[in-house]
């Protein structure tokens, strides 16, 4: 086990715990930046897609993982970002401005949605956001003049300070753009977590009463969490618009929202890593299933025809397994494996045993 001898307060607030972690992250970024040189075009496209999902997942993680406010309708904010991006670009706003503005729009919508959501908690919030997510597709169609409704819209090509970035024409540049945004947001996210704002978020998650007694303005902090979360997801939506190049309401069905939530749960709620792991699973799953497709079809006796909805079902089974056996997600499992290895051979068998707890009602009647 690594032991840190701390000699100053600065050591506690560094971005990385020690130099080893810093080097690891630097190597990771280096590998990511150089990806266009060692990945073929198809895989690069897939990785870009994973990056966009990571971004969307980071957004939801702020809200669901760190503030404890589950949202089952985050696809709505993805849509906000995507449509706003197209509208702004078509109005002639340069990309440097349109991207943050699209995110900002989603963030403002999120903060407005937060106002009624503040009065709800737990299950009511989940259901309200679910309803919001379901209504998204209908609202997109109602707003046809702006959203193109069923016909959909085409995303204009990005022109960033004179450089053309086309998703198909210049996949490398688009990949780097997405990577840059993801890294930027991740650093900002880490900064939030190591400062009073992030601590207030987790305080609200763990005990709202207590947070209030510590002087946390819960209403304002929740609104802020909603705003930041939707801003990040909105950014992901704007990038998604460019990734899809053409899309309509079907890109934002309720399934997307649910998939997003399942994704961060599998990755590990309450950790930045979780958003990454979850998105990687989502991104890789279709590839794995494509290779195993024949075997699974045979097993189910469905013959050669592909079974519709199989990807979702397999993903769902993975979720069930994780919820039951590893509620902390991939990140939690990874942490345990690492600790076990570091302590080897001293780890005890029931070191990670979950505490049994009885449920007490939150109802007073």
């Amino acid at each position, binding site marked *: 086990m690594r032991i840190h001898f701390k000699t100053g*307060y*600065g050591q*506690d*607030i560094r971005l990385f715990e020690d130099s080893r972690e810093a080097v690891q992250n630097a190597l990771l970024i280096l590998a990511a930046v150089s990806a266009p040189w060692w990945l073929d075009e198809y895989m690069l496209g897939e990785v870009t897609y994973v990056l966009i999902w990571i971004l969307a997942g980071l957004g939801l993680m702020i809200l669901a993982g760190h503030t404890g406010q589950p949202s089952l309708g985050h696809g709505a904010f993805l849509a906000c970002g995507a449509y706003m991006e197209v509208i702004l670009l078509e109005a002639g706003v340069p990309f440097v401005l349109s991207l943050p503005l699209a995110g900002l729009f989603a963030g403002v919508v999120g903060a407005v949605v937060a106002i009624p959501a503040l009065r709800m908690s737990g299950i009511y919030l989940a259901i309200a956001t679910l309803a919001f997510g379901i209504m998204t597709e209908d609202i997109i169609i109602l707003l046809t003049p702006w959203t193109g409704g069923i016909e959909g819209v085409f995303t204009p090509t990005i022109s960033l300070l004179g450089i053309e970035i086309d998703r198909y024409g210049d996949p490398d540049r688009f990949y780097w753009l997405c990577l840059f945004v993801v890294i930027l947001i991740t650093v*900002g996210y880490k*900064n*939030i977590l*190591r*400062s*009073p*704002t*992030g*601590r*207030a978020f*987790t*305080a609200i*998650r*763990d*005990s709202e*009463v*207590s*947070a*209030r*007694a*510590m*002087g*946390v*303005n*819960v209403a304002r902090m929740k609104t*802020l969490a909603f705003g*930041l979360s939707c801003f990040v997801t909105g950014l992901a939506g704007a990038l998604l618009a460019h990734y899809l190049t053409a899309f309509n309401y079907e890109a934002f069905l309720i399934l997307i929202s649910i998939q997003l939530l399942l994704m961060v749960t599998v990755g590990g709620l*309450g950790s930045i890593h979780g958003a990454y792991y979850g998105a990687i699973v989502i991104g890789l799953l279709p590839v794995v299933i494509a290779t195993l497709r024949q075997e699974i079809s045979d097993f189910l006796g469905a013959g050669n025809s592909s079974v519709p909805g199989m990807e979702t079902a397999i993903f769902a089974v993975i979720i069930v397994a994780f919820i039951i056996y590893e509620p902390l997600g991939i990140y939690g499992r990874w942490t345990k494996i690492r600790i076990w290895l570091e302590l080897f051979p001293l780890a005890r068998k029931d070191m990670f045993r979950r*505490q049994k707890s009885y449920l007490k009602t939150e109802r007073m009647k």
Partner: protein
Amino acid sequence: MSLLSVRDLSISFGGVKAVDNVSFDVEPGEVFTIVGPNGAGKSTIFNLISRIYDPSSGSISFDGQDITRSRADEIAPLGIARTFQNIELFEHSTVMHNLLVGQHSRRTTSWLSDALFLPATRREEHNMREKAEQVIDFLDLQPYRDKLIAGLPYGVRKVVEIARGLASDPRLLLLDEPASGLSVEETQDMAFWIEDMQKDLGITILMVEHDMSLVNQVSDRVLALADGRSLAFGTAEEVQSHPDVIAAYLGVEEDA
């Protein structure tokens, strides 16, 4: 002038008067204890002071400022910290993290400065950590500094909750049954800490407690409650020998 003054405070839940016309004043620097049987309304008074409940009548003022209608999160910045009867720590965080949240009411930076980790945030983080280390030293929590709350023994959690309160540099500390669930030794430690907080840090303490040994040891003045009404008031001995108090505890009929 008294630090905290409670006047004619009342609240009822579903027709039952949980607190009925209670008045008292807490003087600066003293340890003021509220005793009483279960259901006497002691914790309710705490929840009224920390503004979790709204009183149906009466007033609360702190340092001359009326706080009867303040929001719950406006209480901590005034210099009132509290602990909870059933421990409400942030379970999934470390002790250090809890102590840092305890200082939330002292924060000066905005979220934007936090997201960019500007020098102001960095400076504030340094100061908050320095304060947290002082509290850790004061309450001998060094071994648990980076441990998660979820894995700590009950007695330690009680101390951490007090530490979290202390981290905010309070002028008034509300302790809701600090000795409940503690062993004899732990209770003794608790008594010393309460005395230290009062004498060394100059913090005024308002406490609800059942354990009479602790009450006798640390309290300057004691208020006895039963069924939401105040029964007796005075030093620990005076209150304990008061016939009404004995009757309330032993359940003796008033005319017996």
